[in-house]
């Protein structure tokens, strides 16, 4: 009986020891994000980048379309995307950090507002999206290790301060790199559940970029493949407001 009691006490002690050990094994969200920053090249390498141009293709397999995409970004918050779609023409999206626009041949130009504007501005947050500074988030939590696409990954939930947008992001335990994300995309047409997988990381200018992103939006799937990234040297004119958008801006 005494031996049994001793075993029980020992087991309890083991449990007490094990619990904090497990907690220590799961890094905080901030730790996971710091590891990610290191994994893609480190803060110093990232801070050397002030602008970049990505050349990519966007496939929409369900429709059989492939668009050529040129994407420009510059610190701190500028972005311009030109997608050329066969049979449609050029679609322009962007922000100069204050206003955001969308202009396409089918629907004409428009200025973004409300949640769309907030999400676009967040998307243009140059260092915020690479460095994950904690001041950009109202909540960061590591929900533990899960299997994501066959890879053991930390599942983080992140809520942006400005828009209140919540995303779930998956970071590979093995590499530290982000391998997936889930969020709700706001658009004028309504909210859409979006999930993406990121892979095929390649080094451009000392920083790793995922060159393949598969995005599932409702019943639709997009495949983005980056073919080139040019670091720095993007001219300021890349972010000029398109002529067709200018008349919409209230003086």
């Amino acid at each position, binding site marked *: 009986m005494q031996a049994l009691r001793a075993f029980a006490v020992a087991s309890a002690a083991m449990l007490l020891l094990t619990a904090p050990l497990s907690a220590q094994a799961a890094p905080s969200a901030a730790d996971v994000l710091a590891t990610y920053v290191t994994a893609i090249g480190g803060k110093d390498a990232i801070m050397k980048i002030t602008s970049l141009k990505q050349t990519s293709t966007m496939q929409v397999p369900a*429709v*059989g379309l492939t668009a050529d995409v040129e994407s420009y970004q510059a610190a701190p918050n500028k972005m311009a995307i030109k997608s050329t779609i066969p*049979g449609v023409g050029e679609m322009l999206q962007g922000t100069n950090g204050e206003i955001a626009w969308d202009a396409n041949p089918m629907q004409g130009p428009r200025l973004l507002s409300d949640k769309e504007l907030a999400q676009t501005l967040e998307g243009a947050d140059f260092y915020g999206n690479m460095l994950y500074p904690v001041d950009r988030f109202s909540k960061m939590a590591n929900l533990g290790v899960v299997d994501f696409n066959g890879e053991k990954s930390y599942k983080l939930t992140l809520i942006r301060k400005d828009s209140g947008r919540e995303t779930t992001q998956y970071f590979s335990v093995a590499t530290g790199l982000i391998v997936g994300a889930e969020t709700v995309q706001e658009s004028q047409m309504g909210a859409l559940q979006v999930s993406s997988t990121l892979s095929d990381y390649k080094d451009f200018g000392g920083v790793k970029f995922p060159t393949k992103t598969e995005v599932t939006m409702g*019943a639709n799937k997009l495949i983005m493949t980056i073919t080139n990234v040019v670091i720095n040297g993007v001219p300021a004119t890349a972010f000029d407001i398109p002529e067709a958008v200018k*008349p919409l801006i209230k003086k």
Partner: protein
Amino acid sequence: MAALLLPACRGTVEPATPDRLPNRSPGPSTALPPLPAACGPTAGAVSTSLASLPVTDPLVTFDSAWSIIGRTHWDTTYHGVNWNAVRAELRPTAAAATTTGELRAVLSDMLARLNQSHFSIIPREIADATGSGTGSGSAGAPSADRSGSIGAEVRYLDSTIVIAQIDRDGPAARAGVQTGWRVHSVNGCPLSARLARMPKEPDARRVALTAYSIATRSLAGAVGDTATVVFTDARGADRTVRLVRAPEPGVVAKFGNLPAMNAQLSFTRVKSAGKTVGIIRFNIWMPILSPQFDAAIDSLRDADAILLDIRGNFGGVGGMSMGIAGHFLDSTRTIGTMVQRGATLKFVANPRRVDTRSRGVSPYAGPLAIVVDELSISTTEIFAGGMQALGRAQVFGVQTSGQALPSVPERLPNGDILYHAIADFLNPRGKPLEGAGVMPDRVVPLTRQALLAGRDPALDAAIAWAVASATAK
């Protein structure tokens, strides 16, 4: 990209059952006399070039098609169809398929079980054709090239095919063909023989669509080829006219996996009772026409009223409907809602406040009339139904086709295209367009008598309303 595809493809055929109603279940089988020898292969056999090819791994394609529908159909009851049972029933037949044609027949059968529009197989030889024409067929054999036209539009009236519109400079116009003439035969093949093979169908709109498809396939051919057409004129006399097929006016539009289609847009001004009515016609919702439409609006901004003639417009890229609607709305409005599995998306039209020269403008605020018919399909119905429900347009003509399910053309492992609906569509009042279509505010049917008299009743009514509205404004 927000654009969702909503077309009913002219190129869509079901090769193993060519006389089947497009996108619908076949009617009851009846014994029919064989077609006259002059009719050659069965109408619609434009896809037969690859149908006899041996098929490899038919189950890979079959399972892929079945899974895509299973994953994307917005209605988890599959329109009341036991989708698992369909697979179990048809999979052995698919496994036994030895030719591409046999596999297509099984796939088409599977899709027909859903009994909904916008489900069909587009053979890869049609989907991948450039639409620029491949030249004449060999002697005695019908050409698969159908890029040439006699320069006339037809409609199914009183159980016959009637010339409804003639291109001003086309072969038919040059040969003196008149609207209202009946098409009796093409190259010796009586159209009545083909029309007699149409399956029984209670919905007159579907019959009209099938008849139209049969007639246009018969009349089309390679550019430069000659069609010997026997017409019946106003007096009931037969007239034999040799027409050298010419390229269709407009431009060839290719959008993703959809077959190449001819896209045409034209506009004109009509003066009536001291008022100017701008009339814009376009035959398909292809983005290549968007800049042309924008330019037409720029040219017609000073018109007292605008009329959109979208009869015979089979649909196209759904996203374009929002952009066109925005030319006529002074505030952001929803012209309808797309209900997918797990997502409900609004078709939002933003006022178009910038012209083609990047100058600020106001959207067109004058009276707007829309003319439709039973061959106004898909995106055309979304647009017309939305503008009507918002009270922005008066609709004239006859009830539209009622085939308005948002759809996408997805490539299957064997290269064919699975054209499948992914959503239901509701007008701004929450009413589904599928089946019902759009009922005009003023129903004005087309008649052969009117055509023979050189009149266009629906267009005339729309112009009269536009003039009266502009006058009252």
